[in-house]
């Protein structure tokens, strides 16, 4: 345990030096979100959270169900307004949803009466009004090719498998070319094999884009969090959830799914996350 800690400190230091040059894509400042609930008055989901995410960084939010990780992410997307505090995305105060932030929803949220092509086209049509019709169509084609679904473009979402639906949802989010990509448990409903290939697809798309996009992802899968992200934000259980700890992932990119599991950095991070998530009653035992 002691050894792990020293290693982590070293890694943290080298990382901070490397990251300093990148600007913040997302700044969350003292954000509290409370809801009015029918049964017991005011319910505070997340309490006074601050978090900065660098441009091009992949950060995952992890925690137990109902800990407010989705709420925190929704303050970035603008679907939820903070009760107090402020969120900045790409330097602008977040006042509502906007096409500079692409969202991939937990349950895909494709419109079932529109074909795969149309689902992406309406999004592009709304978000990128200045483009001509043919430019929009090209954009849809490019993104559908990217997720290998071009030949399925005429199908309705009801005819696709879960993995295919998720690829459509990802293509839709990428098509509007947002600077920030927000993924809410995007692979939660997929089987392990499909999930694995989706991880690689996602990183491929991120690479193709020169690793320029900032990605924030909500998950409760430790392996997924480590494989994909630069930092893992572990949250306390709600109500009034806060950040318990931010764990850096000391693994170089590109990462190989098969070989990283044998690396010391992977195993240490995995242990660390596991103990953070399981020993939720006594954090001092670990520290």
């Amino acid at each position: 345990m002691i050894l792990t800690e020293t290693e982590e400190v070293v890694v943290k230091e080298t990382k901070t030096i490397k990251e300093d040059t990148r600007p913040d894509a997302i700044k969350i400042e003292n954000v509290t979100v409370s809801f009015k609930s029918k049964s017991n008055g005011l319910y505070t989901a997340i309490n006074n959270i601050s978090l900065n995410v660098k441009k091009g960084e992949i950060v995952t939010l992890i925690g137990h169900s109902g800990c407010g990780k989705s709420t925190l992410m929704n303050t970035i997307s603008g679907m939820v307004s903070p009760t107090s505090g402020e969120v900045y995305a790409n330097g602008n105060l977040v006042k509502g949803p906007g096409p500079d932030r692409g969202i991939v929803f937990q349950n895909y949220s494709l419109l079932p009466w529109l074909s795969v092509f149309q689902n992406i086209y309406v999004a592009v049509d709304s978000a990128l009004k200045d483009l001509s019709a043919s430019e929009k169509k090209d954009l849809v084609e490019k993104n559908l090719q990217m997720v290998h679904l071009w030949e399925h473009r005429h199908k309705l979402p009801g005819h696709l498998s879960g993995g295919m639906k998720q690829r459509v949802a990802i293509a839709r989010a990428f098509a509007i070319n947002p600077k920030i990509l927000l993924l809410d448990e995007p692979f939660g409903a997929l089987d392990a094999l499909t999930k694995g290939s989706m991880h690689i697809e996602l990183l491929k798309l991120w690479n193709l884009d020169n690793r320029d996009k900032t990605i924030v992802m909500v998950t409760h899968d430790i392996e997924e969090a480590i494989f994909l992200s630069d930092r893992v934000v572990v949250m306390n259980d709600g109500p009034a959830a806060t950040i318990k700890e931010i764990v850096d992932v000391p693994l170089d990119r590109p990462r190989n799914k098969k070989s990283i599991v044998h690396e010391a950095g992977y195993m240490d991070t995995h242990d660390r996350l596991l103990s953070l998530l399981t020993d939720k009653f006594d954090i001092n035992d670990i520290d």
Partner: protein
Amino acid sequence: MKKILTLDTLYTILAFFGSLIILGVIWELVAIVTDREIPGPASTWVVFKELIAEPFYDRGPNDKGIGNQLFSSIYRVFLGFGIGSLIAIPMGLAMGSSKFMMRLFNPIVQILRPVSPLAWFPLGLLAFQAAEGATVFIIAITSLWPTLINTSFGVASIPADHKNVGKAFGFSTWKYITKIMLPFALPHMITGLRLAIGVAWLVIVAGEMLSGGVGIGFFVWDSWNGLSLEKILIAILIIGTVGLILDKMFSAVQHAFTWENK
């Protein structure tokens, strides 16, 4: 699979004829019990053949062929149903999409909905100064409720997931209405229209009995005055058959617009 399907179709056809035979037997029994005061199928068939021989004759305002009577009723039903739907659909969309509109108009809907069509008839006469207008009016006002209620329910139950898509990708109001609200509400709306055409067809007979002139309802009343019970029975069978056809038509439309089944 295909063999089972044809067997199933065969059973359906057999059952259909079976049910026709049951109806005929009951009818004949009723005729026997009432000592032929209510005519049986055989004598009704004779009158039916006479009626159908010249369905579109026109000998003055009170003497028209059965086809003329039927088509003028269908015309009135569609006119009243059309006017009712033109009111019901926008109202339903408005009530479904806004809680304020729902609260504002729902009490009116709940009070007026259970009113019998016949109670509206004098008001219609007063407003339109004509039986024709009054008939269309009562059809419109009684057939609009199912459409209104189903449409507003459809719009009100759009899942948050679909709404979020509109929010996340910055849909304009028009795009939201055309790409999310209407497609989602459409199956509900068509269910409402299907119920509404059924109501309209129920109301037409009563309306035309009051209004007179021409129409299948008037034909029933006129046959009663002429003591031709065969004609009344024929009219009842025609009314039932047309009602069934209208329902099947809307059921086909409903099926065509339900994306869940595709």
